[in-house]
């Protein structure tokens, strides 16, 4: 599904990602772990199409098609979703209105009519329920004044609404207490199927107890220095990253 080959990327000429290779097939969950500053968020931003970053070398394809020339919204229309490590506050736009706009933009790109208001509301209600989201957040300005945990839950709510093919969860666990973590992980698991895939980026293996990865990759200094099965996460938890360097 997603194929990254020899990806070198960075900012203002400075290389942050230094030759990433990653192959993700439908139905899989990949965890990417690694110390602070190793390039995890950069990698997710680059996959999502953040134009702040320059691509120096390499390719990213989705279902065999190059996506590097696509804008972030075009990538979203093709099914890529990024749950932000630091979700952005959008004052003046309610969560409901934001997600409506996003869904209808995607439908428009697919040549579909706007989703009827009734169906939209029903879907919003269902997904909010799935994530045990307090409904009052739906009518508040997106992320404005939300706690860290509320923001993360809202990210997964949006993911549930958009039903992406490839979801990248960048440190979705940070800011969540254990109960919220379980709810969010449960939401993510419910959305999984044989046709979609998930990249879970995390510091800690805690989240991986709930979203069980098929593969674990260790990112260090812009390179994947080790890949393995889910037991690698336990090993990292016990030994830290230093033994790998």
């Amino acid at each position, binding site marked *: 599904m997603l194929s990254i080959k020899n990806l070198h990327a960075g900012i203002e000429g400075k290389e942050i990602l230094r030759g990433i290779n990653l192959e993700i097939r439908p139905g899989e969950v990949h965890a990417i772990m690694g110390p602070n500053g190793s390039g995890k968020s950069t990698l997710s931003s680059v996959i999502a*199409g953040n134009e702040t970053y320059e691509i120096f070398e390499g390719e990213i394809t989705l279902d065999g098609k190059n996506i590097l020339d696509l804008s972030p919204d075009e990538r979203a229309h093709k099914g890529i979703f990024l749950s932000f490590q630091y979700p952005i506050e959008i004052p003046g736009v309610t969560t409901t209105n934001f997600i409506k706009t996003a869904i209808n933009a995607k439908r428009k790109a697919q040549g579909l009519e706007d989703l009827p208001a009734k169906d939209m509301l029903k879907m919003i209600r269902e997904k909010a329920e799935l994530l045990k989201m307090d409904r009052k957040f739906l009518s508040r300005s997106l992320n404005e004044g939300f706690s860290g945990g509320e923001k993360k839950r809202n990210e997964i709510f949006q993911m549930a609404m958009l039903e992406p093919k490839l979801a990248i969860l960048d440190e979705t666990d940070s800011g969540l207490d254990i109960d919220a973590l379980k709810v969010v992980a449960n939401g993510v698991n419910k959305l999984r199927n044989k046709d979609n895939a998930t990249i879970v980026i995390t510091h800690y293996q805690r989240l991986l107890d709930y979203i069980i990865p098929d593969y674990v990759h260790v990112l260090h200094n812009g390179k994947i220095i080790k890949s393995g099965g889910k037991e690698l996460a336990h090993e990292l938890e016990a030994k830290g990253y230093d033994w790998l360097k």
Partner: protein
Amino acid sequence: MELKDKLLASFMAFENKGNIDLDSDVHDLRIKAIENFEKLGFPTKKNEEWKYTSLNPILKYDYSVFPSLDNNVELKDIKKYFLHEIESYRIVFVDGVYSSFLSDTTHEEADVCILSAALKKPKYKMIIDHYFDKITSKNDSLSSLNTAFSKEGAFINIPKNTILEKPIQVLFFSTGSEKELMLNPRNLIIVGENSHVQIYERHQNLNKNKILTNCVTEIFAHKRAIVNYYKVQNDKNNASIIDHTYIQQKEGSIASVNTFTFGGKLTRNNINVYHEGEHITTNLNGITIIEGKQHVDNHTIINHKHENCESHELYKGIYDDSASGVFNGKVIVDKKAQKTNAFQQNDNILVGDKASINAKPQLEIFADDVKCSHGCTIGQIDKNAIFYMQSRGIPIKEAKALLLFAFGNEVINKVKIPALKSRIFKLIAEKLKVDMGFEI
């Protein structure tokens, strides 16, 4: 000939053109006014109040103040500029001349008619003597110029205890069948005790020729009157306006002026408010969304002279390309105006690399027991927010529009006429070049 000299010469001709109230007191006011204009001349950038707005680019044309009267504007040409979907009173002028055929006036629950009639009819003499040109600034040469050439505009006189359900639309069209035309419309609005009125004003050029409008509106809000005034300025790039609004408020009255500026070459809004009593509320709001080389200057002065009054100002601006803006908000709180609440906020987003804004709050506070605040922000479109929205599938143009719309929404929400509100939503979508419904 310089424009000033031409105008001075034109004044004689204006007075001699006949059909004008030469024997009234207004005649004397006009004479004084033209003398004042002659003395002061057009303001230059040396004048502190005009430091960031130069009139030179619009004063270099050979404007005529005598429009030809043979325009043939039809309802279908202008329908889109007024709120035709609701019931309203309508006062329509074309090239400065009243069009009874396009208008819908009344003398029943109130006088909603025209100034030229009020100046001539004896039954209005007392009102004219009492109100006309009583609160305009005599230090402002452009207001004086308007007074000198004042003969037509809206005359709205609402008796006490009258709630006018229908909004009043005051519409000024120019066809510029002359090559370059200067208009000096003059509005007089008197709102009696406990009365309510909603007024929508718009100036619109329909043609390719250059138009300069120098408009003066005097508004008198009596005790507990409520005046909601809306100005939509979305003119063509060959039209400029200098708009002066003078408001006198009596005890317990509420006056709100909402200015929406989306177009025009140069737009200067002067709003001067005088409080004459306690428990008065003044609300001045505005949104500016301009582009290209357009220039908008909002100058407000609120004179707090009595205790327990409040004023709220909220002006937002979005400037693209090399558009430029000025916000100058002066609040004067007299020594005896204790317990005044005066708030002022001016927020701006510069979208274009060459866009600029000069913002200057001026608080002159001489009382000690007051709550006054002012704030000013200048920002850019947040790139991270745009990426965030794009990552959810919202294309960049729509993402920007949504952000900008959200930025201005607080002001749009102050519009109390639903038809006008959705009109403004549409104008903003048009302005931001997106096809989306903003109604949240």
